[in-house]
């Protein structure tokens, strides 16, 4: 029987489980006969990815529901209640509606780029999930440069936004896109700087290493999460992440009252849905990253007799949803800022603060304090 060892990634986990069950060798030999051992590997990975994909889609749907529910909660009303139990099927209905919507491409738009933009916005949003550790061993691929990879992939989204805004040939879209990009890139800097401070402590860019580094306890009680070592870093990272997402109070890419709907004003139907999906997928991913970097990832008290994979997944989801809830809460209680304020905060407060934070962290590590 499988004992619950830690694996490097989910593929190994599957292989391990299959081996424990005792079927892996037979399957492997089967493929081996045809000289296609790697097909097996691709198969397993594909299955994993499919699971991830499904998980992301479900999560996104759930998040759209949750968002409405949280808003309703804050505003002391019910939110969607009709479709399904407590409106739980509302996202499905949304999806059906969007599929049936007309797909309008404005006459003056750049058709190719207009169609390309949803692809480019959606795919990176998925790709971010690759190195996120959902739980012990539950990671698609533990990249050695995981953190850098995440930052790099999330830097693709401004390009898509710009493409979308430009291709629409609508002034509001373009303005929204430009603002979105300005905001995105401005907040990438403190984001990346805050992440570096964490890397200094771990000495590794691998997300798994980062999570493992937070596994211990001080005095046996306080978990060694980086939020305690890096309170400033955490705050910076969280704010920057929210800004990157373009959520209130930083939602200048949309600013419904000013720019109609920002860069995707002209999008409708499934293309719009793609932006929508990407946004929520991104939200989940970013929250997951915050958890990974600062909130101990999947670490939590070990519960006997339950495989650590399962407990860790639960811990991770709990923490992540807590962060997501926080962002939604924020959305409902804080007014939108002005864009100059936003940039001022980004460049004049967060960047210097992040640099200082970095120096302090570096000093602490060099001096051997921690």
């Amino acid at each position: 029987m499988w004992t619950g060892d830690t694996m490097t990634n989910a593929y190994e986990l599957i292989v391990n489980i299959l081996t424990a069950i005792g079927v892996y060798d037979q399957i492997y030999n089967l493929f081996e006969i045809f000289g296609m051992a790697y097909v097996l590997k691709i198969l397993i990975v594909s299955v994993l990815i499919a699971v991830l994909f499904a998980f992301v889609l479900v999560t996104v749907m759930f998040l759209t529901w949750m968002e409405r529910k949280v808003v309703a909660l804050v505003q002391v009303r019910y939110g969607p209640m009709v479709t399904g139990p407590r409106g739980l099927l509302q996202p499905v209905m949304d999806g059906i509606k969007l599929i049936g919507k007309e797909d309008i491409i404005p006459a003056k738009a750049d058709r190719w780029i207009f169609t390309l933009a949803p692809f480019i916005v959606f795919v990176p949003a998925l790709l971010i999930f690759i190195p996120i550790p959902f739980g012990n061993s539950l990671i698609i691929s533990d990249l050695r440069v995981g953190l850098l990879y995440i930052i790099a992939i999330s830097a693709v989204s401004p390009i898509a936004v710009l493409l979308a805004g430009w291709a629409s040939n609508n002034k509001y879209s373009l303005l929204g896109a430009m603002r979105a990009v300005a905001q995105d890139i401005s907040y990438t800097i403190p984001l990346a700087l805050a992440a570096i401070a964490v890397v200094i402590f771990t000495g590794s860019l691998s997300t798994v290493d980062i999570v493992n580094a937070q596994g211990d306890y001080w005095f046996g009680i306080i978990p060694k999460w980086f939020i305690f070592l890096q309170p400033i870093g955490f705050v910076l990272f969280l704010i920057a992440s929210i800004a990157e997402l373009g959520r209130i109070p930083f939602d200048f890419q949309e600013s419904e009252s000013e720019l109609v709907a920002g860069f995707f004003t002209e999008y409708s139907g499934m293309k719009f849905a793609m932006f929508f999906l990407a946004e929520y997928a991104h939200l989940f991913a970013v929250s997951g990253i915050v958890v990974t970097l600062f909130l101990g990832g999947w670490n939590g008290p070990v519960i006997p007799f339950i495989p650590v994979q399962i407990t860790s997944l639960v811990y991770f989801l709990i923490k992540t949803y807590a962060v997501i809830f926080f962002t939604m809460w924020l959305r409902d209680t804080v007014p939108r800022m002005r864009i100059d304020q936003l940039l001022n905060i980004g460049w004049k407060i967060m960047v210097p603060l992040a640099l200082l934070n970095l120096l302090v962290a570096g000093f602490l590590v060099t001096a051997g304090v921690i």
Partner: protein
Amino acid sequence: MPSNAFFDNYLPIAILTVIGFVFVAVSLFMSRIVRPSNMTKEKLTTYECAEVPVGDTRIHFNIQYYMIVIVFLIFDVGILFLYPWAVQLKNLGAPGFFQMVIFIEILIIGLAYAWRKEALEWTQ
């Protein structure tokens, strides 16, 4: 098929990229089958706060956008150097730290310069 950790690690990325593209394509195609298509001239014009669109969209932008981009570029690349340093800091010891302090200080001076020169101001 080279079977090394490097490719093992990046194989999922390739697969996911393909799946992602396929998914988007399929869902767009699906909707094309299902949805109505009844274009009119009015529908095809862009939306401009319930007005008829005026003028050209490809307008000149505020110079600040470029300023921000340039400042971003510099810092982004500066960060590029910080990552390897951060990973290796424990091995580099004090000299490594102080060398990077100089680097960061130059970054800070650059930021101060940009700040003072109002490259960071949105409204001028």
